[in-house]
């Protein structure tokens, strides 16, 4: 018989390495044609940090996204990055880039003020132009402000940003204090179908909502959320690199460290055949210290799918899974125990 159930789980996750200073740096240079190149130490690992960093710089400098380019993760060339982990890059990298962009803006404003012979305070910036607030028709294209800076007013539009998150530090001996710079939140609901003959669980649908502050790039966030849910599904139902070892009731007698999976053929991550419809939603609860209010997304997306699936299995067939993964043998064993209990 096939039985359906649904389960929910919430989660919280941090950004930045707990208790560490988490320094980050960015060099940003506007060229004399108004295009921009950024150097950051951070690594592009599929999370999209290069794309997001360019979006942040384009917004800050009021120039088109296409005019920004990022060069990254080369210790001989790019400035320091502590590491690309702990869901840090948007928060710390984004802030470092914003600080560098502010320096560039100051140079561009200085040059424009000299060109128009007005005080800097009289100026403002809008997409493509720096203009006089009281006379918006008096505007200078940003690339002109750049070339004037280079060769007429003798000040290069180059910014060097360094960022340390505020207030974070080592926890005390009772683990009290402020460990991390920011926290994101997520909730997931999973619908499952459990085959009571075979013990196989089919995840039918996942609904998930993420609060990571401002969504700098909603497409990449959707990718993170879908990827995280799929990874969580694999952890909930199948993945184990030391099969049979980790059991609440004790190591399984058949555990053998010599027989570990050696390829994706015998390590069954979720494939397209297993992946359900995943409906994602973004909830923006902004944090003022984040770039444009952004928090973090990279890791939290993994964490609530597995418990939502485990809770849905219980809702479907009344079997509680105490140790992962919820493999068919554990579900059948649980069903049998439940049956014996009911008879007794």
């Amino acid at each position, binding site marked *: 018989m096939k039985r359906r159930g649904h*389960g*929910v*789980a*919430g*989660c*919280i*996750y*941090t950004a930045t390495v*707990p208790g560490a200073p988490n320094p980050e740096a960015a060099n940003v240079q506007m060229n004399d044609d108004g295009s921009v190149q950024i150097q950051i130490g951070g690594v592009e*690992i*599929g999370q999209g940090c*290069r*794309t997001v960093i*360019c979006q942040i710089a*384009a*917004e800050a400098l*009021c120039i088109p*996204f296409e005019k920004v380019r990022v060069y990254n*993760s*080369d*210790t001989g060339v790019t400035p*320091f*990055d502590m590491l690309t*982990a702990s869901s840090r890059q948007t928060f710390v990298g984004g802030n470092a880039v914003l600080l560098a962009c502010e320096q560039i803006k100051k140079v561009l404003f200085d040059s424009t003020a000299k060109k128009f012979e007005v005080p800097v305070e009289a100026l403002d910036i809008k997409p493509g132009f720096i203009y006089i607030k009281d006379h918006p028709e008096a505007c200078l294209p940003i690339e002109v402000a750049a070339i004037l800076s280079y060769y007429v007013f003798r000040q290069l539009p180059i910014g060097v940003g360094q960022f340390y998150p505020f207030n974070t530090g080592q926890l005390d001996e*009772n683990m*009290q204090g402020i*460990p991390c710079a920011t926290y994101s*939140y997520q*909730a997931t609901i999973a619908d499952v179908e459990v085959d009571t003959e075979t013990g196989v669980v089919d995840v039918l649908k996942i609904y998930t*909502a993420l*609060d990571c502050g401002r969504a*700098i*790039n*909603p497409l990449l966030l959707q990718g993170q959320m879908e990827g*995280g849910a799929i990874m969580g599904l*694999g*952890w909930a139902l199948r*993945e*184990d*690199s*030391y099969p049979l*070892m*980790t059991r*609440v009731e*004790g190591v399984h007698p058949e555990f053998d*460290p010599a027989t*570990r*999976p*050696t*390829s994706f053929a015998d*390590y069954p991550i979720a494939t397209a055949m297993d992946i359900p419809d995943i*409906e994602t*939603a973004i*909830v923006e609860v902004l944090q003022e210290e984040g770039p444009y209010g952004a928090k973090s997304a990279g*890791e939290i997306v993994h*964490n609530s799918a597995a418990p939502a699936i*485990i809770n849905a299995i219980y809702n479907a067939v009344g079997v509680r899974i*105490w*140790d992962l*993964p919820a493999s068919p043998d554990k579900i059948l064993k649980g069903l049998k125990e439940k049956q014996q209990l009911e008879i007794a």
Partner: protein
Amino acid sequence: MNFSEIGKPRPRFEGIDQVTGKSTYVGDMYLPGMLYAKGLLSTEDHAKILEIDTSPAKQLKGVRVVITGHDIPVNITGPIVQDAYCLPIDKVRYRGEMIALVAADTEEIAEEAVSRIKVKYERLPAVFDPRDALQPDAPIVHDEFQGTLCNGNLILMHGHDVSRLVHGDVEQGFAESDLIVEHTFATTPELGGAIEPYAVLAQPNGADGLTIWAPSQSPFANAGAIAKILQLSTNKVRFISPAVGGAFGQKAGYFEPVVALAALKTDRPVRYTFTSKEFFLHGSSRSPMYLTYKMGVKSDGKIMAIQRTTLTSAGAQASVGILITHKGGFMGAGPYYSPNHYAECRVAYTNKVPGGAVRGFGMAQATFAMESMMDIIAEKLGMDPLEFRLKNVLCDCNNCSPTGENMKSIGIRPCLEKVREMSGWQA
């Protein structure tokens, strides 16, 4: 606020090239005169190394260098504590640990040379489960760090056997509770599952030092570690992370210092590309944990106390196991408020591949335990599990975290309400 760029759904710069096979990964790179490296991996879980005879490998035509731990200037490293041998000399502590490295003219010669290296082991009893590792008669993984980095197999965290979180008074919280529930959960070592196996290319640059290419998430930390191991200054190690074929925390550097040493010794570029099998056996995985959660609640569903005891299996090196344990410790009560918290967290050496950072870092394990508990308690109270969560979420009026931090911009309530609406949830 009006934005011109923030909020735009831009595809990733690298996306098209990566899915159409145009990106250049380290395994695709080739330099003139490049040698191919291969490592000898331990076939024992725990054993004394009595002898490593590399001479049959060295005699093979086309073999340029064979490196063992004796050749490495500073043969110890580690991201948090220094307990990881680049190549172990006295004993192996897990199956898959690299013992020696060969660089040769072709991959086939390197493989053949590795198979000719003779290692004499004296097998030792091994321990895999961290609960077993804490038994008085357990085999000791690191005899040499007793009292400095560990007591028995317990790894010291900030100098202590156990890391404690104390907030409020859990005993009082339990006394005020109408229902107390306690359960133990266990999590598995999940692999990051990156499709690209690890690879390292090292190029010697004479007096300028060397350049390393590897798909690492931490090029600056790796450059620093390589410099220390090879006794160079950090500015002589240029570390480049080019295209990365998935990482998930699993790619924080593996054997760059040894490949770098091979390049310096031969004055030739050397590349080591892991096979899928090597990456599966040698690559780090999510550190498994045992988690015992005891929670007290009022009959109206208000959480009064959360007490947690966790034990992490770090594997044969502490790696980031200390940080993972710590993080699960201070955040492991999830996005919920309780006036009283207590936690005891421990981390132990075992004869397994060192656990590493995998996406979710300590909180994946804790979330599984905590969210299971939330459902178990809701059922006992006869409450809708989603309503039970909403009743206890961190919010502006109850914003104090287990570490005593007053949280702000807390989004758990709108997230729960959103998925309830999306799914048409009915308890």
